[in-house]
């Protein structure tokens, strides 16, 4: 079957003259990529799975001892790790919900004939193009209690956005919303412009009000693409590290990936951190799978 997928090499081509067959050309393209993937992705993945069952520490020369499921047992019984998960969950929900509302809202506003629509869309997409670290550094300045522009503009005096343990997580989420709403907006725009105009006309003729039209026509038709945006953003938000790490170092903003980083590279608990990484991986996979199942259901309807 594999060979039938390949178009035959032109006999008179230069490649054929050099004695290369279809198969060898195919291999020439594919094998380097596969090798690269194995060396840098699959091998570490499996190797770290092995480490997760040991008490290996990369900072010492001590040999790794096999400890079985001890790492997993400890981690799942550790209230601190659970609190990290809780923080992450809260962060994901706030941030994704915010992005969805802002992104879809802006898309609805843009989905009409307005002057400079193209320019406006491009400008709105800019935050998404920036580097996480740059955004983090910028917003740190914007949030600054004494000279930050946010406090100045809102007249909040010296409100501590990032130093306040209760506020810090929301501040990080807000930055994330600012940065990634354009992504949701972009996907929503694609979804909205794919809704046939004649459906809206039919609804107008059928005397449906704007809310009725929105909930009965627009939303169901955009739902699948919105779900894709949610999947992407959830996965990304779950893995957030740099933004939170740069902005603040409150215990209340210690997301699971920050905990993981500290465990692996500050405490040098290599084996245990491998186990934690696996737990995170399984969680992300599980959540994504639920979404994908739901997405398929939405699509089928």
């Amino acid at each position, binding site marked *: 079957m594999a060979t039938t997928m390949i178009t035959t090499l032109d006999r008179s081509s230069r490649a054929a003259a050099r004695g290369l067959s279809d198969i060898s050309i195919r291999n020439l393209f594919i094998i380097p990529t596969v090798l690269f993937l194995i060396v840098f992705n699959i091998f570490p993945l499996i190797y770290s799975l092995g480490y997760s069952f040991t008490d290996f520490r990369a900072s010492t020369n001590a040999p790794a001892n096999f400890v079985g499921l001890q790492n997993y047992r400890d981690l799942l019984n550790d209230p601190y790790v659970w609190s990290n998960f809780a923080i992450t969950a809260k962060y994901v929900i706030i941030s994704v919900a915010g992005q969805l509302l802002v992104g879809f809202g802006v898309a609805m506003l843009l989905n009409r004939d307005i002057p400079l629509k193209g320019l406006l869309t491009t400008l709105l997409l800019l935050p998404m193009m920036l580097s996480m670290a740059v955004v983090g550094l910028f917003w740190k300045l914007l949030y600054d209690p004494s000279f930050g522009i946010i406090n100045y503009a809102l007249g909040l005096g010296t409100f501590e956005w990032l130093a306040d343990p209760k506020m810090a997580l929301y501040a990080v989420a807000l930055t994330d919303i600012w940065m990634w709403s354009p992504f949701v907006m972009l996907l929503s725009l694609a979804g909205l412009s794919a809704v046939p105009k004649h*459906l809206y006309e*039919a609804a*107008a*003729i059928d*005397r*449906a*009000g704007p809310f009725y039209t929105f909930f009965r026509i627009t939303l169901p038709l955009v739902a699948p693409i919105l779900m894709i945006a949610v999947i992407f953003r959830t996965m990304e938000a779950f893995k957030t590290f740099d933004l939170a790490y740069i902005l603040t170092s409150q215990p209340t903003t210690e997301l699971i990936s920050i905990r993981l980083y500290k465990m692996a590279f500050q405490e040098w608990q290599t084996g245990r951190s491998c186990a934690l990484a696996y737990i995170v991986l399984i969680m992300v996979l599980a959540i994504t799978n639920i979404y994908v199942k739901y997405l398929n259901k939405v699509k089928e*309807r």
Partner: protein
Amino acid sequence: MAHIQLKNISKTFGNHTALTGLDLDIADGEFFVLLGETGAGKTTTLRLIAGLEKPSEGQVLIDGVDVADWGAAERDVALVLQQYSLYPRYTVRENLEFPLKPKIRRLPDAEIKDRVDRAARTLRIEHLLDRKTDRLSGGEMQRVSIGRAIVRKPRVFLMDEPLSALDAKLREALRTELKNLQMQLGATFLFVTHDQIEAMSMGDKVGVLNHGRIIQTGTPHEIYNNPRDTYVASFVGSPPMNLIDGKLVNGRAVMTPLNFELPFSGGTKTYGGAKTGAATEGRPLVFGIRPEDVYLESGAPVEARVHDVENHGVEKILTLRVGDITLRATVPARTDVAIEQPVRFAWNPDKVVMFDKGSGVNLRHAS
């Protein structure tokens, strides 16, 4: 039920003029067909009445009330489009319920069910009610979208080429169904089509539209037998009316390029009396004759060769060639002719229509 009037409507889209000085009068309970080629402005006219577009000039009156400021919802029209525009992801029942469910005019559930069932029965789609719309065939979809129009009891039904995306058999069946439905409901229908057969077979009245102007309105019979100009003559009828250049000499039609002659039995008298007759004599004209009024006869005055034969079962359509003029003749299927066979033909002199050569206007219509 409503009486619709368009008064001096013009509509431009940027530089493009879609409609110019359009006047239209659709009586209450009438099945009015707007006939025209693609791009003639039919759909624009429909959308103006529906309230989806605003006219650049002129007035739209429904029951004598100027509806310029009314939106589509207030005009209370139903629109059936060529592309079905069913709401995806809903079942047929949900689609039919859609216009009845908005909160503002929410009907009691029993009433909704009753109306949906009645519409489904009328259109014979009862067995499809619980199916998703994307699992329907084209004909079924179009029935559902007609159903969505009739559950509401609107004042006017507007139909934009609802049948043109369907295959021939189904089109014929739905044509009859629609006509029956209209009679049953006694509703005002405005039906837009480019298919002259649909127009002739369904319409109480037909309006022929060309380049944004109404050329002629009348019953199908009038349009067919007494077309206002050469455009209508060649657009309506399949095969279209034969149009031959010529002039009238001593009560005989003389075809100019070839000088073959045909009798023209007192034609001038029938068509406007002696006054026109004198003016018509010798003036360049176009003679129009329907293919069914051209007949083959052994002693007939003109000789022609059979250029082509189309067998339609019930009849044959011959293309006859005289010099470099061709004309169509509909003859009984049993007529035995072969291509390139010489035949003699004549026309029914009473049925000849004369058009002015320059303007193309029917002399009977010219004032």
